[in-house]
């Protein structure tokens, strides 16, 4: 089946990101296709490229990137939710006159239309909230 995940919790603050990542790995292992993870609300913090967790804790940003690369999973970050929370890619940084970048590939800033599209296109959409 084709799956999508909607993740609305921040890493480290609550377990939603851990649960979503574990679920993502399990569904891929069962032979399903994970089209995309959509990050909304505080879930956008999963894309924070500057995150520097202690070395004895899982690095969730890196773990998402690894999953994306291994299984061609799109990592879509709601642009409106991200901008408010200080998460900008190069283009948005330029547009808002900020001299810094906090989001990079394979994460991509995108609109809520993508979430609607995923919900319609995929067989299953599973939400992980904080």
């Amino acid at each position, binding site marked *: 089946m084709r799956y999508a995940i909607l993740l609305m919790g921040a890493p480290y603050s609550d377990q939603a990101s851990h649960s979503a990542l574990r679920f993502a790995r399990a569904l891929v292992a069962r032979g399903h296709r994970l089209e995309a993870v959509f990050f*909304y609300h505080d879930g956008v913090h999963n894309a924070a490229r500057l995150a520097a967790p202690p070395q004895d804790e899982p690095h969730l940003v890196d773990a998402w990137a690894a999953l994306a690369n291994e299984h061609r999973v799109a990592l879509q970050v709601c642009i409106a939710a991200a901008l408010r929370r200080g998460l900008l890619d190069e283009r948005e940084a330029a547009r808002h006159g900020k001299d810094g970048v906090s989001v990079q590939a394979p994460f991509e800033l995108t609109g*809520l*239309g993508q979430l*609607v599209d995923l*919900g*319609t296109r995929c067989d299953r959409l599973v*939400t992980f909230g904080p």
Partner: protein
Amino acid sequence: MQEHHDDSDLLVILRHGPHGSSWLREGLDAALVAAAFGRRVSLLFMGEGVTALLPGQQVGPLGQKGTAATLEMLEMYDIETLLVEEQGLSCLGLSSDDLMLEVACLSPMALARVLCGHRLVLTF
């Protein structure tokens, strides 16, 4: 109303009031975008979410916009199915007459049916 929302594409469940968090705003944003993309959207106000529909809301003390103005635009987006959990209202001592928009009240039984009747359900 019943036949209307039964074949809607998307049900957005709003469970938070205005000002206290960004959940209501972000849920409404998802609903508006879906509607703009041509989806038929129903809104279900549940629990504290019913307070989103109280009249007389104002900007926050720092100038936070709130969501009342957005709710008034729903009709322009062809979002016409506004459902309210009866239990959410009565628990606050409110009735549908207290609300700023015309809504359909749902009994517990009807609520579960609504969840089944939509292709996609998002909870906020």
